């Protein structure tokens, strides 16, 4: 198993090194972890990450569920078209998409140009470098990760159950709420877990669209490692983040099945 050897050397080994760095300086110490909990600014970064991730997950579900549902009820050809409209942005570089939002929402961006041109506002509105910008950018990137697990589960729902409910006198609404919705819940949980995990570890979009008030855990790691050059503390932050993500990943992939989380629908 050459693949295994490669992964042990280039993947597991560096992570183990990170663990070692986080506990030594040069003797064994817990000071790097203590620093994280002692400094309010670091806890704030953690809270920011949690807040952003919860919002992004909720918004992605609100947009993604109806879209995945529509894909299940339309005919094959229309479904393919809808899937392509999600796949193309999905496979477009995250950097390009984040840059697109900077062009649209920036201070001299398109929305501000248009609004000022129409005389709605006299000076530019701040749409990025704040929470709003980060949320818009992240939902844009992570929404497909909600749609595909949902679609995966929804297309496997036996629609004759819904038809049966209708023929027994249920209104379309009742049939949806009492039959389809409960059967689609595994997709909801898989999509939410996936989006949440990716949001927690996301770096590019918060770094480009966030302002000073939106320092997330990932941008904090960059700051500590690059500007403060404090690799031991950076390592402890990394290990902390990894522990959270790893625990959630193992927990939910055991509960939901690994295939639901990694799903092959995206290809």
């Amino acid at each position, binding site marked *: *198993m050459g693949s295994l050897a490669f992964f042990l050397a280039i993947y597991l080994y560096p992570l183990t090194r*990170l663990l070692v760095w986080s506990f030594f300086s040069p003797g064994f110490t817990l000071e790097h972890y203590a620093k994280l909990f002692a400094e309010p600014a670091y806890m704030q970064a953690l809270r920011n990450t949690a807040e952003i991730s919860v919002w992004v997950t909720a918004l992605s579900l609100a947009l993604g569920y109806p879209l995945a549902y529509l894909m299940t009820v339309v005919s094959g050809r229309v479904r393919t078209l809808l899937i392509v409209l999600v796949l193309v942005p999905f*496979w477009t570089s995250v950097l390009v998409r984040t840059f697109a939002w900077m062009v649209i929402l920036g201070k*001299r961006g398109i929305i501000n140009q248009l609004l000022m041109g129409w005389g709605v506002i006299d000076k530019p509105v701040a749409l990025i470098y704040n929470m709003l910008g980060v949320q818009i950018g992240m939902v844009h990137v992570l929404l497909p990760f909600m749609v595909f697990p949902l679609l995966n589960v929804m297309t496997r729902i036996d629609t004759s159950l819904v038809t049966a409910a209708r023929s027994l006198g249920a209104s*379309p609404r009742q049939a949806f709420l009492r039959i389809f919705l409960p059967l689609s819940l595994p997709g909801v949980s898989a999509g939410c877990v996936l989006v949440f995990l990716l949001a927690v570890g996301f770096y590019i979009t918060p770094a480009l669209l966030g302002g000073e008030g939106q320092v997330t855990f990932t941008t904090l790691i960059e700051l500590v490692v690059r500007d403060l050059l404090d690799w031991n503390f950076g390592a402890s932050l990394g290990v902390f983040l990894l522990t959270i993500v790893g625990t959630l990943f193992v927990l939910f992939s055991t509960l939901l099945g690994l295939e639901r989380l990694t799903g*092959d629908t995206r290809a």
Partner: protein
Amino acid sequence: MIETPRSPARPLLWAYCSLTLAFLCTPILIVVVVSFNASEFIQFPPRAWSLRWYENYFGSRQWVEPTLLSLRIAFVTMVLSTLLGAAAAIGLTRGRFRGRRPLEFFFVSPMVMPTIVLAIGLYLLFARFRLVGQPLALYLAHTVVATPLVIVIVSAALKTTDSAIELAARSLGAGYFRTLWHVTLPAILPSVVSGAAFAFLLSFDEVVLAIFLGGPATTTLPKRMWESVRYEIDPTLTAISTLLVIVPIVILCVVAVVRRSFAGAASTASRPTDGE
């Protein structure tokens, strides 16, 4: 059909979803339109059109060189991760050994792992071997994140192909590797091709590992774009973005064509297909 076509909720559902799709696609379309803008400042809609930002891109070494480097790194990553990923997928799907599930977890975990954590871990490792800033660092790092994708895509194909035909080949006297080459691989070839294509794309667009592990001599296109976008909005970026939007579209088309022609070939040979 879940609802009757006359259901009053249907137009509302369509309206809501159209807005969602517009949210997904419009930003990309806007960048494409703006890239043909003639003015120094980004305007929408552009008042005058030109190809000057494309000339700027193709005419400047500081953009073309990173592009060539990115293509090279993406190619090497594609080869490495396809070999490692296909091998791992076959082992994980066909193998019957203890610890298969945990191993599967381990192999796909880079997909959800925060890239920045991997980046600083690899930095510490590569710094010891003086590899930071070398192309090799990026070959290896990108292979770690691209291999899981190949594993997932190839495993999915392996699970839908009938392993009985492999058993039949073995019982007719073919050895393990002969069966692998003549029976298993042809059956999963389209998935291997799409795995390879997506591995290429993943590496070509990768930012975080590139900015942490790449030095001045290994500035990939995304790293160069990142440096540019952090300080000012250079309209050349709109032209590059447009070109980068075309890449996944081409790759998705290639994958679709490969899958379709394979399905066609398989059905004319009256072999059972997996319905893909």
